[in-house]
């Protein structure tokens, strides 16, 4: 423990032994993380895939965290923070796994404390063009109705992905997926409840709920595109084919939207840039603004401990 009178001095005090201020650093002791890549699986591909799934969760988690102190009711604030925490938990293990497979090394600099964990290096010291999350994860959530539409789409898609991943052969991905499935199902149920209440509520709440789905819709097309890394890993038996996930989201919306008296959005997809999207590090400007806030403290005090 640092004994200083000024909290900022304490944060900046670098003894490299204390706990780093921004993560809890338990990655070395999550036993599954250190398993070798399954036989026949390319290590770099697997690391990239772990980063994709980690960044989807990390970026979405940060977005949801922005509701803290801003939600319409205390109960919803707690709910959104809880969902953010679940996703952060998924992100942390996946970032550690990506780091164990070598993904963090290129982002380490000589000025960083050697004890800085892989997950912290990857979360705080990567620029937006190195994030491999889908652009849905980074979109501005705007109002509460749009956030509920966003959670329904995001959790429905990720639930289908994790359900498939559960039975595949990478021990870390399978373990993360097995934990994630009931959590995502719970989140989807929560948001679907609000979609029904708002959609089948007043004329005004109905309009806002429909506008929420309309705003989210252009980002859904990218969820079902297979990146070459994913295609290779599907063949190796450790990844889920994104093109197979569309039916789950369609089924959930076919069940939910009529009950909520909403219509299925028909808006053109946000286009890829030269065939490249979030999975290649080509993001909307929303991600840069978000990361500027998320990473600023860690970058200002790279050696901070507490």
């Amino acid at each position, binding site marked *: 423990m640092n004994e200083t009178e000024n909290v900022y001095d304490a944060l900046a005090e670098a003894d490299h032994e204390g706990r780093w201020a921004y993560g809890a650093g338990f990655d070395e002791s999550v036993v599954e993380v250190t398993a070798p890549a399954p036989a026949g699986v390319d290590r770099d591909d697997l690391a990239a895939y772990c980063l994709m799934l980690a960044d989807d969760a990390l970026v979405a988690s940060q977005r949801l965290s922005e509701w803290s102190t801003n939600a319409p009711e205390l109960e919803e604030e707690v709910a959104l923070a809880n969902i953010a*925490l679940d996703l952060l938990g998924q992100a942390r293990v996946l970032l550690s796994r990506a780091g164990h497979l070598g993904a963090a090394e290129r982002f380490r600099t000589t000025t960083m404390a050697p004890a800085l964990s892989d997950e912290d290096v990857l979360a705080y010291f990567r620029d937006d063009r190195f994030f491999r999350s889908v652009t849905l994860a980074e979109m501005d959530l705007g109002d509460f109705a749009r956030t509920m539409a966003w959670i329904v789409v995001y959790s429905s898609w990720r639930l289908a992905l994790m359900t498939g991943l559960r039975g595949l052969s990478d021990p870390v991905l399978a373990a993360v997926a097995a934990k994630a499935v009931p959590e995502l199902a719970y989140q989807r149920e929560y948001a679907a409840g609000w979609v029904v209440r708002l959609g089948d509520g007043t004329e005004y709440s109905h309009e806002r709920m429909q506008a929420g789905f309309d705003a989210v819709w252009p980002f859904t097309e990218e969820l079902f595109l297979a990146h070459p890394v994913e295609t290779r890993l599907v063949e190796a038996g450790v990844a889920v084919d994104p093109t197979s996930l569309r039916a789950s989201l369609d089924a959930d919306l076919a069940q939910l939207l009529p009950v909520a008296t909403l219509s299925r959005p028909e808006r053109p997809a946000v286009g890829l840039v030269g065939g490249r999207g979030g999975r290649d590090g080509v993001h909307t400007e929303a991600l840069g603004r978000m990361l500027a806030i998320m990473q600023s403290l860690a970058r200002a005090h790279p050696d901070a401990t507490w």
Partner: protein
Amino acid sequence: MSTLWDVASEVTDPEMPMLTLADLGVLRSVDQQDGRITATITPTYAGCPALDAMRDDLTARLAEFGEVEVRVSLTPPWTTDLISDEGRRKLAEAGVAPPAHIGPRAVGPVPLTLLAPPARVTCPRCGSPDTEELSRFGPTACTALRRCPACREPFEHMKDI
């Protein structure tokens, strides 16, 4: 070996101190080899923020018996079915409705239960079977908030997950 397990299993959960880590099903194993103690725990939720506190508490309690390493394992995943009968009794005594037994999980897709009747949870204070949900998410990752119209008391329910 049973001694070390007994010592470790007395460590309580940081957020629900009426339960021990053993009651909760979070403590997986305690082994000793060449004086080195390895305790393995599993998180309740993927993002459970209490994990570090659990590790510190376990380390402190076991330190007098040797060098301690606390490992975290995600496999098999924790579910509320792992909470012991003793743990369920302690939860109810403390005013937290224990989770229902879920049993083996389906391996296929999880359907949206939009139109399914809401789960029935008995009030831990007055025993009334008709309680209502206030919020699906409570003060910790494990709990939801409910209210009992009979005794008019709010209470926490440990989510069935």
